[in-house]
């Protein structure tokens, strides 16, 4: 390949990427613009992207009327705890499912599929009853447990695939060196799985961060409300909503996840595998 065609390729790559990003992030930009508009500007026949008469009133309303600060803390707590717990219990299980031939294997695969296939709305009431038995309704712990169970199938399914991709010889070499099984798992396998772990943690975090239905039925106390619950209060009857405060609040809810992504994204490619081999 000569230099000019390489240059040509690069431009194409940047253009394609820009196209993708525009498609994926324009609703966010529109939400940003909406959050600074006054009510009159929200119903214009030919809306403009830059608010003509920008206002911060929507942010003030969003924060004073609903306790978004408290809701953010609640959501952070639930989402981080779900992500951490999911990864901690999924990692060994995924390893076992990928490496050992046992009966657990078939049962687990069947469960993973079934749990995703069966309409979750029909599971809400039985889950509620069980949590009530152990007095975990109206508690963020109960909600976290639900989210962990909710993201586990995905985490197991993904991590299994990643474990299979790791050559057995690596482990066997470690075993020869006298490492115990646990040492092998944590020192050799886990780092190699970093990208998969990050994907699973992201998934678990964001599912918990954005989940609405379980939070709605489990949490009754206003001071426990998570962000989606607090935001839903700006939605009214027959599809009418208080769009300004809703957009302002939603933007404030989006930013923490984006920061979380920005920090974690590097780990998607900084696993041992990528580090071991010059890319």
């Amino acid at each position, binding site marked *: 390949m000569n230099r000019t065609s390489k240059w040509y390729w690069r431009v194409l*790559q940047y253009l*394609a990427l820009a196209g*993708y990003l525009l498609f*994926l*992030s324009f*609703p*966010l930009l*529109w*939400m940003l613009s909406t959050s600074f508009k006054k009510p009159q500007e929200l*119903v214009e*026949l*030919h809306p403009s992207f830059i608010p003509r008469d920008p206002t911060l009133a929507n942010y003030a309303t969003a924060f004073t009327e609903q306790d978004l600060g408290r809701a953010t803390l609640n959501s952070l707590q639930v989402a981080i705890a779900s992500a951490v717990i999911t990864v*901690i*219990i999924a990692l060994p*299980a995924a*390893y*076992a499912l990928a490496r*050992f*031939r046992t009966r*657990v294997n*078939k049962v*687990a695969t069947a*469960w993973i*599929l*079934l*749990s*995703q*296939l*069966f*309409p979750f*709305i*029909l*599971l809400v009431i*039985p889950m509620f009853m*069980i949590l009530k038995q152990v007095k975990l309704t109206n508690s963020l712990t109960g909600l976290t*447990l*639900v989210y962990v*169970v909710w993201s*586990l199938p995905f985490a197991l399914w993904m991590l299994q*695939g*990643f474990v299979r*991709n790791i050559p057995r010889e690596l482990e*066997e070499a470690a075993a*020869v060196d006298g490492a115990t099984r646990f040492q092998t798992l944590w020192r050799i396998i886990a780092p190699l799985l970093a*990208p998969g772990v990050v*994907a699973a943690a*992201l*998934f678990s975090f964001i599912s918990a961060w*954005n989940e609405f239905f379980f939070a709605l039925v489990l949490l009754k106390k206003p001071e426990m409300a998570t962000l*989606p619950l607090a*935001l839903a209060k700006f939605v009214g009857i027959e*599809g009418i909503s208080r769009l300004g405060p809703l957009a302002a609040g*939603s933007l404030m809810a*989006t930013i923490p*996840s*984006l920061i979380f992504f*920005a920090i974690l994204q590097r780990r998607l*490619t900084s696993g041992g595998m990528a580090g071991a*081999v*010059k890319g």
Partner: protein
Amino acid sequence: MTALNDELPLARRRRARTGYAYFLVLPALLPVLFLSVVPLVNGIYLGFTDARAGLNQTTHFTGLDNYTGLLSNEQFWASFKIGLIWAVSVTVIQFFAALGLALLLNLNLRLRWLARTLALVPWAMPPVIVGIMWQLVYHPDAGLINEALYRVGLESLGTNWLGDFSTALPAVIIVGVWAGMPQTTVVLLAGLQGVPGELHEAAAVDGAGAFRRFWSITLPQLRPVIVAITSLDFIWNFNSFGLVYVLTAGGPGGRTMLPMLFAYEEAFKYGHFGIAAAMGNVMVIIIVALLAVYLRRRMREASA
């Protein structure tokens, strides 16, 4: 096999391995058992009863009655067809779009961290506002699409995207693709890290072009991840209805009535828990049958 394993008699080795496997699975097992398996068994069982919403209702076992009723429920099957079109289109478009994006994000481009972060926007936005934003995009009078067409003088191409009988389903499919792209992209991007770089270098030295390298090295290495994420995507898409509910509520004229929306209304709007659970069971069986073909390999690996 290693020397360590060779010293152990076969049976003992097996037992030890099994014990270790159970030990590793245990932490996941308890919450799953109580908060997933028990409700699932309960849900499946409901499909064979006449369970209804109501205080002090008694539930009777009715065997296959719900299923014979479903057989002649034309609306359910019509929505099933729409559900398949929806799930297959969203999954396929999502996969190809996400693969392209993942490959781009895997390159050593400038501001890659920012691009990777922005690619996850659909995932990060609270679902409660996603539907509302897309309604504004598709609004016939003041929507972004029609406004953009108006500004470039192509007003005649504008239409009532969500209201027109022919454009409603494609319009919601695009929203479905948008909403699900981040997780597919993240998984594929993570999967790409498992493709050893030496293979690429070796192939490049052999003179293989970028496309050849992708086709003969990257793709085969990525296959387990691709199979895993596309099948999960398919299941998720088939099961999702929240976004469509906000956008069209199944209309116009039932053109976007997804089967899960149908089951949801059956359970929560009319209180027919038994029939809704039966619909769930039927959907599970049909989707499993469809996936079985696709997942043959995966299943064999699992039991191999």
